């Protein structure tokens, strides 16, 4: 059976369980309302969910730019320069260790309670993993390649764009995946904590009044965002695979394109 079939079966199975378990009373509706009632709740309040989704998407989009764009760039710089790496990396990862979620209510004091604070929170939340993953990925690059580029007079930025990032592309992409997912989580969580708009706000509001179908309708929307984001990354991955062939990841990707051409890696 093909993997996609199995996956579909699993998804169908999950969906079926989601409908049956609450209906049969195995799980109280409070914890998991049936899928149909969730969908109905979402549909009935579409007028409320649509603008909330727009707010969340806007915040996610901006945070994504900061977190992923900035994370990759800074990770690349820090990862390729040994001195800043030794100096900054420990500080950065230590900084990330400060439990932001707890301090978030206090931060809103300075950042305001609108979109800005959500964007700031989600950006930081997604930025560090992206940056750390990128920086770490860069350390696995063959130093000989950097030497070659240097000998050809590549400037720092040229090395970054033409050598470091392409060479680290599998790590960068997974960093992006993690970072992007965290941005979504970050926006929703901060909306859940403090806000008066967005999917997260709806989730936490409905939750406070024990309206679980509406809570899960919100969760479904978050899931939909994740699915869309995943599709986008997949697309980039496929593009990148064509020119990324020196590593395991590249190999796997190439195999996907021409299954007969290469041996399985192990």
């Amino acid at each position: 059976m093909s993997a996609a079939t199995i996956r579909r079966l699993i998804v169908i199975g999950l969906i079926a369980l989601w409908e049956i378990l609450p209906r049969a009373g195995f799980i109280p509706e409070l914890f998991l309302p049936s899928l149909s009632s969730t969908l109905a709740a979402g549909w009935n309040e579409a007028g409320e969910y649509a603008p909330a989704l727009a707010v969340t998407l806007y915040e996610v989009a901006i945070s994504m730019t900061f977190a992923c764009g900035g994370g990759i760039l800074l990770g690349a710089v820090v990862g390729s320069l040994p001195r800043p790496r030794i100096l900054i990396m420990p500080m950065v990862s230590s900084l990330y260790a400060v439990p932001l979620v707890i301090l978030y209510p206090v931060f809103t004091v300075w950042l305001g309670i609108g979109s800005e604070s959500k964007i700031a929170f989600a950006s930081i939340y997604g930025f560090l993993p992206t940056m750390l993953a990128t920086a770490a990925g860069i350390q696995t690059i063959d130093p000989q390649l950097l030497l070659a580029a240097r000998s050809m007079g590549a400037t720092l930025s040229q090395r970054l764009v033409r050598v470091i990032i392409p060479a680290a592309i599998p790590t960068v992409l997974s960093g992006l995946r993690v970072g992007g997912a965290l941005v979504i989580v970050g926006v929703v969580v901060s909306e859940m904590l403090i806000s008066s708009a967005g999917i997260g706000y709806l989730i936490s509001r409905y939750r406070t009044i024990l309206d679980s179908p509406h809570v899960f309708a919100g969760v479904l929307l978050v899931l939909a965002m994740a699915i869309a984001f995943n599709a986008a990354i997949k697309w980039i991955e496929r593009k990148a695979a064509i020119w990324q062939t020196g590593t395991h990841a590249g190999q796997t990707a190439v195999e996907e394109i021409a299954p007969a051409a290469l041996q399985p890696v192990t």
Partner: protein
Amino acid sequence: MGGNTMQPLANITPLKPAGAIEVRNVGQIFKTTTQDVVALEDVSLDVKPGRFVVLVGPSGCGKSTLLMMMAGLRQQTSGTITISGAPIPEPDPNRVGVVFQEASLFPWLTAEENVEFPLALRGVTKSDRRARAQDALKLVGLDGFGKRHPHELSGGMKQRVSIARGLVQDPPVLLMDEPFAALDEQTRMTMGDELLRIWTATGKTVVFVTHSLTEAVYLADEVIVMSPRPGRIVDHLQVSLPRPRTYDMLSGDAFGSLRDRIWRHIRKSA
């Protein structure tokens, strides 16, 4: 070998004056976790502009290290190096080009794109770049392999792409670290002749590392022989054989005695 029709590299013309290399009392000490390694000690060397100098010496004697220092890729522990009259604290492709001992191709670029890489760095236009890369690939006998990625090439092919990448940069000083090591004898000869042709046409200064003594004498104006650890220069031969060189000279006495002289050094020190 795929289509060995080696053709002149049209765009390699004598644009820039060749550079001089001055190496003065240079030493290199590597600090390792276990002990310090004196790789080179008190190496001095003068390469006049436009000379073809070959560096030979036993494995691990410091040839690559010396080349890396001339390229500005590694700083000497002591002494000074100047290229075209100025020190080289940083790699400078306008003064020096390098062909590495290991091919070091970018795995995510095709052969063609690898060769174009140094040109792209300098902002050469796409079409110009492509044309020059094609020429260079033709020169190394890889016409038609431009679209392949490094992992789809054989060992010798990769090395040739790397040579093409070095040539396409057209630097006044060209440093080549065992560029022909992975090539069969026929290709090696053809490539050697091509290199001499380009060198004659452009008047570049070439420093060339090889383990083949025949190749050394065949190509060189001067051969520099190094001794192992700590690497030092133990001999400096002038090869006064006339140019253009031919393979008939290989059986001549002059050739034989030069080769023997080097051989004795290598034999002793290895």
